[in-house]
């Protein structure tokens, strides 16, 4: 079923919307959750909760890109879950590995900040870099994809991707500092 039809079902409060969305995006959402949490049970719950939140937010929302919309919800919930789980144990996920790489951007200090404004700044910066750098950055730090996956997609090597991401992180740090972010 096409996305717009599924969204229509959400708007019409048809429970078939949940089944259709789950049928279509279960794999996609599970992948996001699994990359962050590395736990299939958690991933199942994340998918369910994602759809529940979508049910409560559509309407009033009318996402034009349903996949992205659901993916963002799943990612948000997964990271919240990660915070909880991580306090008790180290989560052996690709997300954890990618998190460590952010050490050269974030100093684990500073005060409160607006995540949406920060994302806008990151967005602005990513527009200034190459297509490869931009997509690699998002694949790594949004989707928590592995270096190998990214390298294969780019027809590149893992070391080249690492280097590319290092340069991108470095540039991002510089950009954020120039924009006045205390990170």
């Amino acid at each position: 079923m096409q996305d717009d039809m599924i969204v229509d079902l959400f708007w019409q409060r048809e429970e078939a919307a949940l089944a259709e969305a789950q049928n279509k995006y279960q794999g996609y959402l599970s992948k996001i959750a699994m990359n962050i949490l590395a736990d299939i049970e958690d991933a199942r719950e994340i998918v369910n909760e994602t759809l529940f939140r979508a049910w409560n937010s559509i309407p009033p929302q009318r996402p034009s890109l349903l996949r992205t919309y659901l993916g963002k919800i799943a990612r948000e919930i997964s990271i919240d879950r990660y915070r909880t789980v991580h306090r008790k144990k180290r989560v052996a996920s690709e997300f954890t590995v990618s998190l460590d790489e952010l050490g050269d951007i974030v100093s684990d200090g500073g005060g409160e900040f607006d995540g949406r404004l920060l994302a806008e700044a990151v967005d602005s910066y990513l527009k200034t870099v190459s297509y490869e750098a931009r997509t690699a950055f998002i694949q790594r730090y949004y989707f928590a994809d592995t270096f190998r996956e990214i390298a294969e997609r780019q027809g590149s090597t893992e070391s080249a991707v690492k280097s590319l991401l290092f340069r991108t992180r470095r540039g991002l740090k510089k950009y954020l500092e120039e924009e006045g972010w205390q990170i």
Partner: protein
Amino acid sequence: MNKLDFMAALTYLSDPAIEEAEAAREAPIKKRRRPWLKFTAIAACAALVLLAGFALSRSVHINRLPDNTAVPENSAEPDTEYETPLPVIVDGLPQLSMPSEDSESGGGGVFLKNGTEDLKGAEPLLPADIPEKMPVYKNPTKFYGGVYPDFTDVNKIRENLDACARAWGLDIAELTVTEENPFSEYSAAELERIFSDVYGVPVPEGVYQTQSMSAEAEGISVTANQYGATVTVKADLPEFDGEDGFAKYILENYGDKLLMSAPETNITGGGRNADGKQIFTVSFYEGEGGAAERLINKELRSVSVIREDSGLKFSYSFKEGELLGEYPTVAADEAIELLEQGFYLEAAEGDVISRENIEKIELGYVSGSSEYWFPCYKIWIYDPDGAIERVMNMKLYNVYTVPATEPRYFAESGLSTAEEAAPLAPFSAEDIPEYQNAGYYDGVMRDAKPATSADESLEELFSDRDFNAQIGSFYKVRVNETLDGSDALWLNGYTTGAQDDQATFYRATVLYDYFAEKAMDKDIIFRMSGSVKMQESGSPPYTSGDEAALLLFRDSEVSDFNRAFKCYAFVYDVENIDGGEYLLARGQRVPELEDSLTDYMTDETASIVTSSTYNPAVYHGAYDPEELAQKLKEIVDGAEKTPLENLSEGRFGPGVLGFGGSFKEEPAEVAALEYVSEPIYERQIPIDTIPGSGTPINFENVLNDLSGQFSGIAYEITNVYTREEAENLHENFDLPDERTLYRAHAFYDVLNDRPLDYYFDIAGWGSAKMQEDGYPPRAIGDRMLSFFNDNDREVKVPNSNFEFMLFEIGGVKIAYHICKSRIRFESAAYPNLDLEMAESEKEIVTTTSNNPIRFTQKSTLRSISDFMRTELYNRGLFTPDEPADALATVTVVPEAASLGDEIYSAGSVENLDSGNPWRQLEISEGDTLPVYERVMSRNMEQNGMIENVDRGFMREALRFYAIGFGFDPDKIVIEDNSLTPQELEKISESARTELPEEYAEPTEMSFKEGGVEVDICVTDGMFYRVDIGIEKGFELPEGAKVGFYFGASREEAENAEAALLAEYEWLIGNNDAGKTAVNSGQSENCFVTMYHPCVGEFIPYDDGTLPETDRNDIIKTIINFSLNNIDFMDDGTIYCYGIPNAFETQYRKVGDYPMITPEEALELLRSGSYVWTAFEDSGRGADDVEYTELIYGRDGVPYYKFYCSAEGWRGCEAGDYGVFYVPAIAPEYVDMPE
């Protein structure tokens, strides 16, 4: 803020950015993973190369010279300019593209409790019964991101709404219809940003149009879009006996609302959600028609029904695509092979493609929002994921969608390259609305000649020919290929004539002998009236697949090759009309045949538009083939035959049609009709004397008649002047009607091989008047190569014989010769002077005209430049500039010069001292250093792939390095997984006959022996790279010499060397990337440098450009030291990477440039003229330099490399060093970046 906060904030990244990355994740072509090598497989490289080529071919205006022209790396990357792609034709059918995602499956696996037996679904057409051809449709709307439409058919939406409303008994006239567009919630700026950033196109009109309409009456609500409609009705529903009971109930109670004459039930699904519940969908489709038709109905035109609390929801699908044609299909077993080769739509997660785990195959159609709707196989593969089975107690299946249409029709298959595909662009007035529509059929035949009245008998028509006596045979033929006119000129024995441009040459198969009434299967070549030039006169050319009837003369039946093309026929198009076959007659009416004309001739049949042009053929009547054949045969039989030997040669002259060569039964006679293969260059190179006429002249004579000096300039048109503007600008210049005045920017002197940078006015050949002869005016942005003969005037007038249009295809600059007859070159000195041209490349529509520019020859810019330079020089028509002035400016590309983010943790400055012998180089006044440039590409940022991967070279290089490492040549097995099946077959054949050891099992491009693998690929758009992996602990063969060091210090390196491979010679170096991630905690990587014979010599490798002297030996060593290196991974595995190939093909010497001293370079560093890496913002500079050496960058330019302490910079410690580069040649020859 902590790292997790930062990561959480990324959730709010913009949708377009995420979608773009997601699109890249879901690139349609999967690359085969290799278990051990981390480097890109050749197949992936080749696929990207082909994709780049494809993208270029579709959008010719994007791909201009010069170097900064972007070449899309893959289909997911948006083009940077807003251009409408030209359609590409493959074997007479439009080329297809794969959707970027499988919109039907959404990318998830399917959970089944009991395996595929859980699945249900009607299968009107089983895979085993797939027809040889099935229809493919084009989605009338293109959806960006699967959501944003480029066009919405508002009328169609209303039609759909009305159809459903009527079905449910609503009064259309009384309905209040509401129009909706959810995209109206977006601001114009937001839409602009989405489309510009993500898709690289302007916001399409469709986004602003009505997307759906809805109406409600009598408790029934109807909502329609252009693909269907949804009807919601209230109903009290009984309990049902499963999905079958529900379907039965719907048929009984609502069957008349389904808009079908014989609805078939289709209950699909059976997969389970995370809670274990099975999900089914009930739908219906039209059951009338054959199996294939019913499959299409099921996939594109069905009605699904959903139960709701208060009633039912009917979803009607009315997908009506544009039928592109019947495409050849692949069988199910072939589809499995394609799946294994990675040719499938991205669908399920995971890469477990295992033939033995295939449990179900079914036929369907890819539809949804994809650009094309084509048949496909849905292949269900069990994914034995233990965790899922254990935790969920269900089996996971991945569903892969493989096109059932032959892969060669897909651009992404790699089998349908730009070279092979045919962007012969059918053009329409709508495509180029601003154009004066002088050459395009718009319903009015502008130059139509009325059918000649039947007032001349055959005898009168052919008064000088014994027509009746000479008719030989009457054949039905199918056109297989249109031959290039200039190719046809070389068909043995053909004599060109003044009317050649009114006819076209074809290869064809004779299908049927109308006289003998028997089927035939013979290949012939014939020349038929009708051409592009004649299309507005009602005589367009035929295209592949067209069928025609030929009336041949007797002498053509017996002609030998010296007497080819001597036959005649009327022109009949074979058409199936209303189930019957008719011969539609073009041209002259014939009294003797008037009685045989059928009554069937309507306006419609009189203006059938052929598939080769949008101009229709004009017919004077339609014949029944059998009746016409009988009539003609009566004429033939009643005539007295002239003995064949009395038939004079060439009596019918040019302008008549016929076929070449003997038409006897022996195939060998036909086979002899091949092109003349002997070289003709030096003897005669034909060029049109009359543009577009096809009449050849002698190339030598052209040059011999000229005097003075030539120049050759590549330029870009920056302005197109009107004739009035031209007159005002240059009062003393009389601009001919055939030419147009342009402003142009000269950027390359092809004869002196140096860059230019100035503007001039040029009166180029071609104008509005000339557009229908293949010389339309050029457009702003077009890049041209012209040659000028002694015209140092205010307006340059190029020699119209030597005009080329320039394109960059896959990083290679290509020059297309405009409109002149093809020049045949057999000169081995210029192998790329006469490249094979696809039909598609021979005509390109410019933005100034919908009449195409015609191309007749294709060369690389390099080859045509070198050729013309040599030819003109040998004839005294060109004198090179003084060598001193010929040194081109060297453009420094920081990314190419630098080796990455270079911070060296050497521990102390002493450890920076290496085996680099540069200090042995004494520097005196007048000393020079050689500078090289990459032949393939000089711009790493483009990351474009090299278009033409020379696999022969790769194999040679592979073998070279293998032997260098001491492998036994007899044991080397070279495998290649990047080859097409055809190429593999070719290699296999070669292996059987010539190279049995090397090519015995060609499956992968690597050689293996013990713990070593080698992989060669094209990488980073720069050069062929050889990656050599050596397993930890593998003992290198005796004689192999490897040097390396671990860690960050010389001491560590020496220790490592002593511990591991002390017996090998080695040089410590510091010219590699150092720690790539000094701040990222990845400093475990170790780097080494090696220089030894086993990796071969870098440039100049026996190319003669660096003579054997002591000084040059040092320079060679510096080059090798700089560019040959090895990388050890932290697990002890060795990766040699970045080893430039040892062959001269990748680099070309630019010249010997004056060398500067280190002190002079330091001054340049102090003045800010340097190339920086990660270190620029350190605040360090010339005064902080602690160590210096001379190296060559990967751009082939020598640099002084200055090391400064990095202590305190971004966490660097004492002993860490950052670098600056300064070109080691005189700065006046260097173009430094901003």
